[in-house]
């Protein structure tokens, strides 16, 4: 992979955010906050050289497995996969339409690059554990990345899966949790308190790294730490701002499960363009 600058990656993340806004507006339904908030992570994962994949050979045996457990984040993953060349970008406009490969929530292997079905929460992590176990059994070098929401941590199955990942010391598994503090019914700490998530995961015998989920360098370093941790699985907690990049969406639980209307999309896209003209720097201010 060609070396890319962090500025280029930040710019790409913003272009992908704009793509998500357009896809959701076109579909009329879908989730805005999570996909926008995690755009920096997804961009870094696919374009920052963190994982191995071949867009023109999507089921290449030695690929790293990316499991999207929080299926409602799929607009950003679809946009990233199209940008990477897994399928034509023109298909992005078909999201949530009858006959589209871009199902409202991902369906395993229905689209190049989509490893599992998700939407009902908590199921991706168990499948990721199964894949990591299979890789170990077969002495394969490929790794598994499982992306989850923080509200998703409410599901009991998630903690069953963590027990299992620790039991089998799945150092080839990296769990990424988008800690954006919102879920459908409001703020996570009101719906079902999760704090301290890092301490909980550490108690479950994970190597825990908590980072600013909008800082590309921190994302890179965290993933590299996971790669050199050989005795246990790693959990990366991404501290993110839901709706990041669109001021009126940021930190508002109301935007968790909502798509922008046309006028809102125009405003959102104008804002995202403005950020880009500031040199592609994404900051937390």
């Amino acid at each position: 992979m060609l070396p890319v600058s962090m500025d280029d990656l930040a710019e790409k993340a913003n272009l992908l955010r704009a793509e998500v806004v357009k896809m959701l507006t076109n579909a009329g339904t879908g989730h805005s906050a999570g996909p926008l908030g995690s755009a920096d992570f997804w961009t870094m994962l696919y374009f920052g050289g963190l994982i191995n994949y071949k867009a023109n050979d999507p089921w290449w045996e030695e690929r790293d497995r990316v499991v999207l457990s929080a299926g409602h984040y799929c607009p950003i993953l679809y946009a990233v996969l199209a940008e990477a060349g897994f399928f034509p970008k023109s298909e992005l406009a078909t999201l949530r339409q009858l006959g589209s490969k871009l199902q409202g929530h991902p369906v395993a292997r229905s689209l190049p690059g989509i490893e599992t079905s998700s939407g009902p929460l908590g199921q991706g992590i168990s499948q990721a554990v199964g894949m990591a176990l299979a890789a170990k059994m077969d002495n394969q070098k490929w790794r598994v990345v499982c992306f989850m929401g923080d509200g998703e941590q409410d599901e009991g199955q998630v903690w069953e899966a963590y027990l299992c990942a620790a039991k089998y010391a799945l150092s080839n598994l990296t769990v990424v949790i988008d800690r954006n503090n919102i879920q459908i019914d409001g703020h996570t700490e009101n719906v079902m308190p999760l704090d301290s998530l890092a301490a909980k995961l550490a108690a479950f015998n994970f190597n825990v790294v908590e980072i600013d989920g909008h800082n590309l360098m921190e994302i890179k370093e965290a993933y590299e730490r996971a790669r050199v941790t050989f005795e246990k699985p790693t959990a990366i907690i991404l501290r993110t701002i839901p709706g990041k990049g669109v001021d009126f969406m940021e930190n508002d639980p109301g935007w968790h499960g909502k798509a922008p209307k046309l006028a809102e999309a125009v405003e959102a896209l104008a804002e995202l363009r403005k950020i880009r003209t500031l040199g592609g720097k994404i900051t937390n201010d």
Partner: protein
Amino acid sequence: MINGEMHLIEDLRNPKLVAMRDGYGEGLVEAGKRNERVVVLVADLTESTRTDLFKKEFPERFFEMGIAEQNMMGVAAGMAACGLIPFVNSYACFNPGRNWEQLRLSVCLSGNNVKVVGAHAGFGNGTDGGNQQMFEDVALTRVLPNMTVLVPADYEQAKKMVLAMAELVGPVYMRMTKPVRPKVTTQGTPLTIGKAQVLRSGKEVTVFACGAMVYEALLAAEELVGQVDVEVVNVHTIKPLDKETIVNSARKTGRVVTAEEHSIIGGLGGAIAELLVEEYPVSVKRVGMRDKFGETGEPDELLAKYGMTKEAIVGKIKERR
């Protein structure tokens, strides 16, 4: 008349009593020998699901998942996505009872090649009480697209079924009861998934049965010799249902009774009724659990109390005269 092609035991009145789960455990070891991609997952019930035999033979392909059936199903789905052939084991009330949603999304909707085995189905857990008895598992699995649903009639059939399941690509559910039961089939009895077996041919009424009720149906037919000419069909595959054999038999006899150790809602009786209503409407009488939960008791006492015996089948056959 007993169908010679089915190679049943010679003396139906003196069968050997063997547990289906023993056949399963032995078949699983054989499946493991034939295909190194076969792996076994269990939720803290190794000995009673008879997966201890596989564990002893292939410890590196055996995964103890603890009392966490939801995760177990998902892990199996992930393994299947990587080319393994996982067999997922627990009691039927948890597997697929507890982990049905994982079976639905991670396995069936995703088309993953996972084999689900429900032990101690029906009154299998007798004295443990209704809490852990399971009469809803066939209904739960039969309703899922992409699913194959199997109910072996005995030890021998369970053993053959494991090998057939391992070869079939796609999600499969198989249920078994716990106690020893008559072994009616032999090594020579054929088995093809999806192909119902006419064990005894008759002209006046057909009993479609599955599981241990197959033997009860054969006894009922023998008892009625000279009164009613009974055909007995072993419907070991509830899904996909063998439409041809079932409709042909119903057409021949014009009278149908179903028998299963499962709820009459959604199980074999439900499936047969749905099929015949569309293809060849005849009156169908169902023997099975009649929309109730079980209770504490020995399995045989409970089968008698809740009407899943030879006598109950005879009663249903006579009801129609």
